[in-house]
């Protein structure tokens, strides 16, 4: 029984069957990659997991509880954090404030009318955020405006924000899309570090095979809205069905 169990999930947009009949089981403390060509339904699947979309059929269970019909913030409070394809951070706020917000969300829940005490008086949150910045090697940038950082740093900050919530499942949506080679390698190293040092399950959607094969313990290949195969990385590499899905029949 995995921490995330997706059963018979289907989603249709008008005439387009975006997801056919997806079954997926993500085991605890593994890195599970979901790959597939453009239009395979990867992002639709992810959106069904985090509450942005509600699938037409099937069920999504996280840690024995259904996530269907819950709002994104409720699903996050259950322990699923999401990293976006383009880093979603609070651009107008400082790096330190960016890091404090998820810490507050973890401590106070979805809403708290904490309007009188000063932010800087919240020592526990402040310490936690500072420590997380330290771990992300960003302590020197703490007073910078988050929007003014490089893309690689924004990605780092976003991952740090998600980790500071101590999620049980981290979802990454093409974390290296549009990145230069050096930034991509940095991100891979960071994710490897996270995988080794933390008690965390990671599900990653990715295009870049280099990233997938350096991180994943298990790979699901999605094509035209249905899982083609699910296997270990070494078996995926030589699988003719995967080649065909990716490169077309001529290959």
């Amino acid at each position, binding site marked *: 029984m995995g921490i995330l169990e997706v059963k018979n999930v289907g989603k249709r947009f008008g005439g387009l069957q975006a997801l056919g009949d997806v079954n997926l089981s993500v085991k605890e403390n593994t890195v599970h990659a979901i790959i597939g060509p453009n239009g395979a339904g990867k992002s639709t699947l992810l959106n069904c997991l985090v509450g942005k979309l509600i699938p037409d059929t099937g069920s999504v269970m996280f840690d024995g509880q259904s996530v269907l019909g819950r709002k994104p913030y409720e699903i996050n409070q259950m322990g699923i954090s999401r990293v976006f394809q383009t880093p979603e951070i*609070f651009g*107008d706020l400082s790096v330190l*404030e960016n890091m404090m*917000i998820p810490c*507050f969300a973890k401590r106070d829940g979805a809403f708290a009318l904490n309007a009188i005490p000063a932010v800087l008086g919240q020592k526990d949150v402040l310490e936690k955020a500072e420590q997380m910045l330290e771990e992300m090697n960003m302590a020197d940038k703490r007073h910078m405006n988050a929007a003014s950082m490089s893309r690689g740093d924004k990605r780092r900050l976003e991952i740090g*924000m998600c980790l500071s919530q101590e999620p049980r499942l981290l979802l990454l949506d093409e974390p290296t899309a549009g990145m230069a080679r050096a930034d991509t390698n940095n991100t891979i190293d960071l994710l490897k570090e996270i995988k080794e040092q933390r008690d965390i399950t990671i599900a990653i959607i990715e295009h870049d095979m280099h990233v997938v094969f350096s991180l994943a313990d298990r790979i699901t290949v999605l094509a035209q809205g249905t899982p083609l195969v699910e296997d270990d990385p070494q078996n995926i590499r030589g699988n003719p069905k995967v080649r065909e899905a990716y490169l077309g029949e001529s290959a």
Partner: protein
Amino acid sequence: MFGLDNKDTRMLLVVAVLTLCAPFILNPFPTDSAMAQFNAGYPDLMQRFVIFGIFAVGFNILFGLTGYLSFGHAAFLGVGSYSAVWMFKLLSMNVVPAILLSVVISGLFALVIGFVSLRRSGIYFSILTLAFAQMSFNLAYSVLTPITNGETGLQLTLDDPRILGVSATADGSIPVTSLFGLEMRSTFEMVVGPWAFQFNAGYYLCALILLAAFYLSIRIFRSPFGMMLRAVKSNQQRMNYTGLNTKPYTLAAFVISGMYAGLAGGLMASMDPLAGAERMQWTASGEVVLMTILGGAGTLIGPVLGAGFIKYFENIFSKINDNVLHSWFSFMPDGIEDFVVFIIHPFIGKGWHLTLGILFMLVVVFLPGGLVEGGQRIAKWAKKRKGKDSATPGKTTPAE
């Protein structure tokens, strides 16, 4: 001090000095001089300065922090005024229960309007609040005449019950508003040489409440709640995926700013116990938006400055007429004098809106951060100049 850092304490002290010394600061010209018409240190106008300051400070909690632009905040001001006048009619002429009721009622009103309007964001939110405010205005103007007294406006009468006070004073007139016996209209005049400074009880009550309101707004700005509101403005998507429910945050900000508006409305009625529907009209809602943007949205002191600026223009520029202009330019030859007056004429008197509009345009284009940004730029420029001056004689002072 008061749980604020040095910078915020300094700002609070600046506002405290400005408001408490306003009778002096706003009265720089001797009473008989030609410039006396630029004096703004009379009670009526000073009260308006601080009351609109409170209104704008509250509006800024919503607009400055969350970025939700409400175009219907005058509705809460109006509701606050009506509540206060009803308290004067039914209970007593003491301003305390009246102000409390106006804050509570406008808070409830804001809760209802906010709950519906905040289902949308951006322009749709603005239009929804505008629609609600116009509905409130029309209700007050006609449908709800038994409560609001329609277009005449709600006024005190001699046969009001006033169960804790008197319906009429001993000499048969309507009693005046007071704070536990201290009449709001009582004014002490201090004559120093050619100057006459007026100290009004009502003004000082408003000024103290403004200080309390300003202090509270600093605390909100610096609190985790304030940070969440800024996060709402910055990236709602990230908020939702960080386990935070944005809706109660925006609603709380809306209700708090509605209560500030109600407080301002209650004070307005406490200074002059009548309430009319025109207080809820959309132009009044637009005015507070102008004040906040002109002063600097999202800054602490900006709205206070903006409110003072606009109210000063409204009351001082509108009083300049052609006769005054002729007396100013009488040193010129006749033809030229008439020409100059002809040119300036559209910008004064009833045309003060034109002057204000041009100023507003200039500020938005050249100082998007409002008057506060202007102040910061001047300070930076002065610092740079000072740095240059001290750097010139020195030989090895590093540039920067």
